[in-house]
């Protein structure tokens, strides 16, 4: 699907909870398509200028410096805007002309219209799990994209991933995945998200280096999920139930 979208020059929106492999997926596709990848982690103060570029004052001269988006367009790269909803609302608008048939990046301050080469591709990621009204993607933005939904992998596959990524034995990976599933049961009951595959891999790394499993789960997963002492106690008990 991603390749078909790439061939048709349609931008892609990746939806899914944090740590389920969206970034890894884009990296993999960039490798498959043999294109450079420009990744921008969006934050709540990311401005249009941060993406497009701005004048900087260097030695008393004003010098134009391209932002990452402009560089990606020029290079015909895959530009990946991670967690786009974190960026300010007006920022998302600058990608609109890039994301439809025009495929141009207007650079007002430079008076230039940057036309994207056919190799260029725009990919956004977005986590629908934050159910905050402030963090919803505008319809005018999302309707320009082909959306691909990601979830946590099924347990058998997730076990393989955890084992392969972290180097733990398959029975340990299975326990980690079972524990992960239990924390996902708590989503919406005090946890915003359950443990992601990424966190399970982190815990796996620690275990592979000889950290006791319960301590590894507590450090890599429990403490990452919550600051609430009762929740931490409960999640630690869950880890203790498995290990």
């Amino acid at each position, binding site marked *: 699907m991603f390749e078909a979208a790439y061939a048709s020059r349609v931008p892609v929106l990746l939806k899914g909870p944090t740590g389920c492999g969206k970034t890894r997926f884009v990296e993999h596709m960039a490798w498959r398509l043999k294109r450079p990848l420009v990744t921008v982690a969006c934050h709540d103060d990311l401005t249009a200028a941060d993406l497009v570029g701005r004048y900087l004052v260097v030695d008393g001269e004003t010098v134009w410096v391209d932002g990452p988006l402009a560089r990606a367009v020029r290079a015909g790269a895959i530009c990946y805007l991670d967690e786009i909803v974190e960026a300010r609302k007006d920022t998302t608008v600058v990608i609109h002309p890039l994301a439809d048939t025009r495929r141009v990046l207007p650079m007002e301050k430079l008076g230039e219209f940057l036309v994207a080469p056919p190799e260029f591709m725009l990919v956004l990621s977005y986590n629908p799990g934050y159910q905050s009204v402030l963090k919803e993607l505008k319809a005018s933005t999302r309707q320009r994209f082909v959306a691909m939904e990601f979830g946590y992998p099924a*347990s058998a596959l997730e076990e393989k991933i955890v084992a392969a990524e972290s180097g733990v034995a398959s029975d340990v990976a299975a326990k980690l995945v079972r524990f992960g599933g*239990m*924390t996902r*049961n708590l989503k919406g009951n005090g946890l915003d998200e359950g443990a992601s595959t990424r966190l399970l891999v982190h815990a796996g790394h620690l275990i592979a280096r000889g950290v006791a499993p319960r301590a590894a789960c507590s450090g890599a997963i429990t403490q990452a999920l919550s600051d609430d002492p009762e929740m931490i106690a*409960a999640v630690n*008990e869950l880890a203790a139930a*498995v290990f």
Partner: protein
Amino acid sequence: MKHALSRRELEDRLDDMLFTVLSARRTAASLAGGLAELGRAQQDLALHWVHVAAQNTGELGFQVASMMPQALAAFDRAGVERWVLDALDVYDREGLHAASASLRDFGAFRRRVEGERAGVSLSEMARTLELFLRGLSGRSLGVEPADLAWTDTDTVYLPERIGARPDRESNRRLYVATAAFLWGQARYGTFNADLDAAADAASSDRERALAWIAVLEAMRIEGWFARQYPGLAGKLRELRAPWPEALVPVADSLAIEGASIDDTVGLLRAVARDAPPALPPWAGVLRVSRARRAREERMEREKKDLSKQIDALRESLKGEGLQPDDLQLEASYDTMEVSASLDGDSVEVSELVEQLVQSMMQDHGRVPDDLMAPSVDGTYAADAGASPPQEGGRAPEEHKEGGILYPEWDHRRGDYRKEWCALFESDVPPGDAGYVDRVKEKYRGPIAQLKRRFEALRGEDRLLRREPDGDGIDFDAVVEAWAEAKTGREPSDRLFTRRRRTERNIAAMFMVDMSGSTKGWINECEREALVMLCEALETLGDRYAIYGFSGWTRKRCEIYRVKTFDETLSPAVRARIAGVAPKDYTRMGVAVRHLTKLLNKVDARTRVLFTLSDGKPDDFHDGYRGAYGIEDTRKALIEARLSGVHPFCITIDREARDYLPRLYGPASWTIVDDVTQLPMKSAEIYRRLTA
């Protein structure tokens, strides 16, 4: 150092405190005698607690006074305090008789205190256990206190304290093990067979057979844990005595993969001839009929829910042009993973369906076949379980059951009365639908003015200058920096301008007095103030909610919903504003606590609790009037502030009374002396407060 009080002085003071219960046979002199020998510090301590107890009832005060010398000899300062406070708690819960018994029983009190050091109470553990159980199963299991540990498969009942083990940590582990085991009974289907019938078939002694079932199930579930939750199995093993030698083969045979309740029942006849061994401490008791009832009700309910969901799923598949008759739902008993498929292709199912299927797997071991048959007409009767509409016009004495329980601060004790107020939420009965429009017409000029002023407050783009980083160049700063560089000074690097939208991120909760004392003008002005506030807040786009409060004794504290955070200013809300009417009394603390809780559920940077009331907190009959109510409300406001809420109190009062600073001290507050000013002022106050 102050000198010790003489017998005479003590007698006078005790007389003052206890005159209501003293008589010719019960004199202050006899009490004073016991205290006269003590040092001044102990005398003061004694008098203090006698005073505290006497404020609840004189009788309790008298008893505290008469037992105080013994108590002082037996306990330290903190012990005496606990001794009195415990008795007052018992008094609140069970009355005078039980409270006197509690005072008299020094031995039990001492044991309790010692047990408490090592013991763990359910209230400390309840939330952790609930989360733990939810994590284990995904099906929510309540945790409730009871005399014994048992489960009806909907709720896990646990003792209020566990102090059987020598230290806190192992008592905690015992709680976790007990809760997990009871969850295991639900998860691995202990109640999926007719246990009474099985017991009768196996032995003439039903009780003994049931005791055996409990033992065998402990073995079987520990076996399941060993495979799926080895950590839990270890915990269970460590906390129980080893099985008797003769039973080890039985335990092994129940620990095999896939063992079900049928295996337990199958073994029952062979073992039930002998007396059963002692149950592990985490095994609780089996309450077969209660569990059966809960299970049947749940199965009924979930079957209905799931078939509704499946029908909806079928409809949506039909909408996609598919023929959904062969929809398959499956789940693995082992991992509880749910999958749905249609003609070999997998189909997405909602989380709700997943939960329902998982829950049914636990009760039936599979998804019942008849569910998958398409229902005849695809429609369902309305839920039979829906509650009937509430009746109005209750007698005031009537104590409703249920309600959300809140503690209340008793300043005389310097402690909370636990679970003291029962709070009920209901909608304000709608009033005249045209009311709001009439008020808007009446205040047309002021509202237009208000809107203009409030619009100015709305988040606007602001140009920030001299930023280290930004979209544009701040030329003033560049010129300055250039000049500085030329003169050899170090130029600033803050040369940019940046647009920044200052977003208002405020949630406001309005708490309106609906007590009887607002009758007349005050109520009229409160309603008008609400109309104005709604106009103002709609302009601003701030999130807000409006609730009224009133009450009649601690057992019936009422909160009336006018507008929740999720509602818009709909015609229904407008009608409810018109329906705000004087009700009963003003029990304010509990209302502050409840609304603070609601407010804290809203995700906002700033949370404001706005109270609108007249005069003092007051309630009928149980002593809320006066200092008690003021102190409780004050405490509730302090709690609100500590939880991150900004309380602001508007009080309508013609004479600025001296208690107001004490009452509203923890909050910001203001007095509106002319009630007709309230509509105009409250909007203005809100503007200033949130600008």
